């Protein structure tokens, strides 16, 4: 059994080939969650056009669950109203990826990153 077998299929696929990984585009709103020294960090960004999120991306220092969660979150963010993200709850995304309970810091990092990016829009 190889290392991949310990992760859900979608987590594995997104970790190995994240579609939304990359540095923030010019003018993007950027938020951070987590702290590298504490074991993980997510930087999430998005651009807005016509009141809706047009592009989203991330960079992550963390386990495959952190990378996959950030990638799925970026996919979900596109088309959202950024004003509705100040109380962003990542529970549904975590459930969708079958992130195990002991990985709860990933959810916190992601929520903090999205909310910070949303606040950056208001700033």
């Amino acid at each position, binding site marked *: 059994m190889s290392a991949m077998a310990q992760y859900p*299929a979608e987590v594995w696929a997104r970790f190995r080939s994240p579609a939304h990984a990359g540095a923030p585009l010019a003018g993007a709103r950027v938020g951070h969650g987590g702290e590298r020294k504490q*074991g*993980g960090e997510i930087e999430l960004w998005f651009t807005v056009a016509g009141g809706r999120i047009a592009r989203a991306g991330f960079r992550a220092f963390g386990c495959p669950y952190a990378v996959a969660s950030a990638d799925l979150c970026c996919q979900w963010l596109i088309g959202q109203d950024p004003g509705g993200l100040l109380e962003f709850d990542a529970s549904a995304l975590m459930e969708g990826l079958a992130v195990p309970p002991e990985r709860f810091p990933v959810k916190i990092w992601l929520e903090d990153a999205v909310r910070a990016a949303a606040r950056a829009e208001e700033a």
Partner: protein
Amino acid sequence: MDHRTEPERFVYLDYAATTPVDPEVAQAMCGCMTAEGVWANPASTHGPGRAARELVETARAQVARAVNAQPDWVVWTSGATESNNLALKGFMRAHRKRGKHLITVKTEHKAVLDAAKWLERDGCEVTYLVPGADGRVDPAQVAAALRDDTVVVAVMLVNNEIGTVQPVAEIAALAHARGALVHVDAVQALGKTPVDMVALGADSLAVSAHKCYGPKGIGALVVRRAPGVVLEAQVHGGGQERGMRSGTLPTHQIVGFGAAAEKAIALLPTERARIAELRALLETRLGAIPGASINCPAAHGVPHILSVSFEGVHGEALVADLAELAISTGSACSAATPEPSYVLRALGRDDLTAAATLRISMGRGTSRDDVEFAATRIVAAVARLRALAPAA
């Protein structure tokens, strides 16, 4: 739909964890299990029992030769964990009158450290030495820690995580000068580097079959027979092994250990040289990665274990990205926050670096092509994960 596919190529580089049973060893073992073979209880006095006993004694001589000991020094156990427990608990209990002080090292295997902790709960005092950055203990540290009531100094010959070779002979000389016994965990050394129990000055030596292409579930504590070297048994029953370890002897396991030890010693010179070349290649490739650090230089370690730490890379992600390689990491990843190796922590590595550490261990099945493949994959994985991470 599960769209994962297993990698086309898979390279095993975890020979320090365990090794496959050598086919010749397996064949020898098979001859001791079924009705057609030598299956009787070696403690029995009838003919079949004596035949089994003969094989057990042949194996005892083979294991003894592998570590330059006498056959009657070998006590069969279930493996190195039991051997280490028997040595530490057995010596401490047998020498209560001398004292209750034990010296060991923070980077020892858990089989030693947990036994030491148990002894602390039992009233013993334990001094845990902290090695240098390369894992080596300075004999002067041992000299400073020795007391008149020190019963045992327990130090491993080769560290299982980073491959450091300890200056056991120097340590043993210091310990003996103060009247203390010396126990050596030689599990990672047998068949990988020469082990001479007499030259080392070890009073007891723990070895295991499955680290040298023998079966799991069999090991030995080799105990020097000399005045003052006395153990108190920890397992009681039929009085086998001169009363030091009761229990019916598993002839097939013992025969396997003997055959494995003999073959490992025969192959040692050529295998050690071959593996040393592979290690040099791997060390050159991985050492060239910016932010990579070799945890024990070749000069102070065994060839078959290479431990490398990478700055700016998440440990669990690194191992996951190396799905084509069977390697060990410097952390136990059961949670989002990695739990770094206590060995690397003891050497002063920070938690993130310790977690982003790979232990690559090579063996008979490792080819140059395997090492090239592994190096290429590791270089690529480190680069990908660093690119994926936010700026530090």
